[in-house]
């Protein structure tokens, strides 16, 4: 099949315009970020000059390739990283061929031909074929299960492989490799990174920063092997292992090769265009054929090829300018800055930071805080910076590098950043306030401070506004903090940072602000709080009231009067509402243990109240379903009589502690897992938490209690107890992270209670432990619980104190008559009416 597209040229007679402009035909090969940006600029400069046709080898629209890592780790969906949706192409009259690869360029006929035989004519051609990942020439490199990390198809293949929860080996400890490793770990795989050089990310980081990074990566449970040379990938039909030169065999269900990229220039080369490493272009991004441009990772300018987004976007701007007749526009590479997009790991590097005899270094190390900063100076100018841990001043240093500002006068305090550059320390906002208007804030999209402050001056007041109108912080998001500071320093008190994510429509404050102010302003009731924080509604809504009730309860144990009307029905009546308005009842069975007496009582209750369904739950309990609301107190009375209390199966609080039989019965058990589970449950029951908390204790690493997908899990081993946390097996599936190892049961209980208390104090309402941990950082939690013993003890004491007030069986209270109005109608008019 063959089809020639001769794009319509409006003729004078059929046009309503007096002087119709004849559109030039622009064909673009490739639909990545660089050509996407070039077209955006082109439509800005000359909306009506070009009739554009795009061939995209990927079957989709243009998306933000930088954000593939958050898609892999599950933080974002594909829809969230789309740059141009289908509507954009329609709006600009662009013909987009999705999933069509161009196979040939005919420069004489000025046409391109696609894999399905489509032929398109061009006046101007833009080649943006990007790069291809390098595949190591080693045996087994073509086995199934060996992937690269380049596009959405790779991410989808990795996500599929990750479902196996098996072993992943990432070859290459550079930016992409590490992001892939963390993403796969987040998806529950056991991950090993092997890296040829002695330290990670050696192109962007010096050795000390590389070591700090390695430590942080390892703390996430990822194994790192440096100075490792891959010999072969073994397997029969699909990958089974990676073999290193030194003979080490690493079992692998998935191998990701992230060893680098090379420009994809074959198509241009076949067409007779000059190609060196990449497609050779002049300063105006023109190839050896003046009607053919190249942009992005496939292009070689000034003898260099480029892989980071900032220079590629610069190239895109030049292409657009050249196409619209501005022939003076030229691309010149400038210093680039790098950040790693891994939540909780802060590192930044910019410029040239190699050692040299003509160079001076200023180094700051604070190992306890995990901070490392190194500045490289040459001729009294800053030429490079590497920062780890504290990267707040990165933009300021990067600006000094790009502008080649003489730093001799501030040299003494230079490393402390702009706050000290004037001598006296300034407020925290000073770093960003001190930046000049041309300072680049968003490296991904090349947005400088002036553009943002101008947008703010024009009426933008929120982060979302800024993202929508300037694109700053809209790609990788690592400059979000800077943009927020700009909003703050420009708008002053008018900027309400919580506008970014208020608790609900009743307030502009976010969860964390509200919690802080509860303590700071001594707020002790919901009405007081709403008054003091100027709630916009008279009495809140179903979203904020339960959250406020929890925050007050957690902040003022023993003092705050629980507000029943601000609790969801399940917590109000201590049972779980079902779709037909009946309830389910789950009594506590400590550690999942029960007895003939308890089971007999349950059987009797089921018979007596005609309960239609009885089911065993995933948390090792018995659930009676379909109980009428009026019957609840009577059902509870009978269960209480047999010694059973509420199982809190309805609570944003401690739910169940699942156990295996441990040393009591199991021939593999290493500790008394059942006993520890019962102790934990008896100690922790009744506690309210931001969201439900489920525990499990397994007696050996065979893990029959499935502790590694719980909020908090314990795996018993010969030498003691491995404490895990931040697992999930619901909407999300996620293996736990290791919190630490302790030798005794008492220590295990202390660590778990302290962890729960930290979560109670920091977690946002309805935020499960794994989401809280992801937000605040696993290391921060480990430090506070495992390393800082005093802090742990204090947290433990606070947990113990709050438990004093909550360990009262809510069923027994209601059997005794509390909240009787909940369980009886106010009036029964059925008889009266019938009698009439």
């Amino acid at each position: 099949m063959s089809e020639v597209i001769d794009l319509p040229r409006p003729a004078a007679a059929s046009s309503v315009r007096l002087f119709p402009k004849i559109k030039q035909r622009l064909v673009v090969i490739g639909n990545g970020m660089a050509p996407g940006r070039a077209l955006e600029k082109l439509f800005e400069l000359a909306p009506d000059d070009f009739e554009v046709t795009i061939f995209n080898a990927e079957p989709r629209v243009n998306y933000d390739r930088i954000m593939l890592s958050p898609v892999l780790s599950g933080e974002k969906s594909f829809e969230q990283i789309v740059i141009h949706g289908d509507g954009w192409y329609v709006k600009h009259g662009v013909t987009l061929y999705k999933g069509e690869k161009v196979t040939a360029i005919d420069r004489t006929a000025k046409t391109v031909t696609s894999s399905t035989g489509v032929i398109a004519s061009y006046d101007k051609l833009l080649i943006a074929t990007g790069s291809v990942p390098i595949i190591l020439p080693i045996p087994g490199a073509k086995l199934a299960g060996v992937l690269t990390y380049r596009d959405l198809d790779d991410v989808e293949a990795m996500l599929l492989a990750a479902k196996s929860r098996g072993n992943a080996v990432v070859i290459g400890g550079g930016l992409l490799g590490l992001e892939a490793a963390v993403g796969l770990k987040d998806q529950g795989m056991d991950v090993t990174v092997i890296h040829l050089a002695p330290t990670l990310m050696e192109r962007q980081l010096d050795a000390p920063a590389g070591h700090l990074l390695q430590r942080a990566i390892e703390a996430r449970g990822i194994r790192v092997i440096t100075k490792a040379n891959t010999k072969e990938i073994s397997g029969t039909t699909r990958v089974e292992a990676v073999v290193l030169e030194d003979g080490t065999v690493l079992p692998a269900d998935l191998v990701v090769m992230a060893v680098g990229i090379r420009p994809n220039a074959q198509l241009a080369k076949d067409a007779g265009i000059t190609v060196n490493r990449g497609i050779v272009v002049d300063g105006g991004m023109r190839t050896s054929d003046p009607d053919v441009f190249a942009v992005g990772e496939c292009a070689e300018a000034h003898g260099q090829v480029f892989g980071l987004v900032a220079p590629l976007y610069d190239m895109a701007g030049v292409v657009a300018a050249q196409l619209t007749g501005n022939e003076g526009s030229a691309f010149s590479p400038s210093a680039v800055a790098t950040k790693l997009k891994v939540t909780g790991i802060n590192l930044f590097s910019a410029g040239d930071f190699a050692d040299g005899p003509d160079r001076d270094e200023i180094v700051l190390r604070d190992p306890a805080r995990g901070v490392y900063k190194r500045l490289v100076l040459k001729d009294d100018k800053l030429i490079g910076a590497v920062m780890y841990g504290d990267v707040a001043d990165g933009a300021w240093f990067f600006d000094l590098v790009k502008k080649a500002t003489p730093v001799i006068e501030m040299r003494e305090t230079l490393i402390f950043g702009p706050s000290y550059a004037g001598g006296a320390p300034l407020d925290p906002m000073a770093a960003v306030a001190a930046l000049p208007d041309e300072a680049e804030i968003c490296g991904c999209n090349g947005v400088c401070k002036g553009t943002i402050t101008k947008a703010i001056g024009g009426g933008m007041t929120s982060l979302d506004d800024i993202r929508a109108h300037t694109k700053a912080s809209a790609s990788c998001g690592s400059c979000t903090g800077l943009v927020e500071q700009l909003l703050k320093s420009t708008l002053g008190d008018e900027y309400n940072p919580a506008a970014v994510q208020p608790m609900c429509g009743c307030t502009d404050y976010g969860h964390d602000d509200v919690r802080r102010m509860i303590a700071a302003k001594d707020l002790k009731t919901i009405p007081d709080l709403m008054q003091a924080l100027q709630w916009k509604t008279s009495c809140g809504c179903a979203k904020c009231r339960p959250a406020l009730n929890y925050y007050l309860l957690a902040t003022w144990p023993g003092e705050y009067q629980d507000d029943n009307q601000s609790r969801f029905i399940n917590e109000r009546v201590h049972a779980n509402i079902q779709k037909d308005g009946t309830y389910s009842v789950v009594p506590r069975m400590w550690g999942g243990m029960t007895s003939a007496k308890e089971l007999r009582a349950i059987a009797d209750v089921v018979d007596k109240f005609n309960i239609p369904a009885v089911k065993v739950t995933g948390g090792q309990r018995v659930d009676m379903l379909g109980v009428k609301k009026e019957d609840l107190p009577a059902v509870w009375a009978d269960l209480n009589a047999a010694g059973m209390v509420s199982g809190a199966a309805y609570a944003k609080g401690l739910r169940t502690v699942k156990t295996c039989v441990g040393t009591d019965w199991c021939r593999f058990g290493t500790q008394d897992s059942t006993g520890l589970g019962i102790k934990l449950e008896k100690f922790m029951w009744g506690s309210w938490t931001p969201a439900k908390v489920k525990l499990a204790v397994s007696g050996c690493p065979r893990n029959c209690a499935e502790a590694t997908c719980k909020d908090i899990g314990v795996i018993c081993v010969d030498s003691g107890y491995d404490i895990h946390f931040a697992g999930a097996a619901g909407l999300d599936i996620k293996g736990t992270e290791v919190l630490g190892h302790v030798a005794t049961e008492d220590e295990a209980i202390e660590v778990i209670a302290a962890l729960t208390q930290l979560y109670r104090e920091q977690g946002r309402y309805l935020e499960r432990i794994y989401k809280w941990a992801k937000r605040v950082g696993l290391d921060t939690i480990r430090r506070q619980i495992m390393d800082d013993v005093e802090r742990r003890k204090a947290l433990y004491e606070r947990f113990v104190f709050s438990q004093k007030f909550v360990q009262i069986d809510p069923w027994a209270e209601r059997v005794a008559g509390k909240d009787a109005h909940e369980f009886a109608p106010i009036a029964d008019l059925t008889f009266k009416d019938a009698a009439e």
Partner: protein
Amino acid sequence: MSDISASDISMSERGWIDIGSIDDIPILGARVVKSPSGCIAVFRTAATEAFAMDDRCPHKGGPLSQGIVHDRKVTCPLHNWVISLETGAAQGADQGQVKTYPLRVENGRMLLDRSAVSVQRAAA
């Protein structure tokens, strides 16, 4: 007895049924009235006012009396639809209507319109 309560009694005889004291319902709470054709939910707002409507969410029949009351609205416990207590209309993007019944509070007593419990109610 005052004139007002005397007139209440006569009204009650004409078409209002005394279903109880408003203090039998917690502030921002609800109770149900059983009627021959199903339950009627009676809500109390933060002010001393009460509203009555069918105890069935138009979405999936959730018992509205079990929801959280805020302003003059209730959020259904099953899927968080928000229903206006004044009009019975679903709020926001959701579309649906709950049948409401006249209810007045006089001297702390709640008087429900007799139409709410007539056997023809379902057909009305």
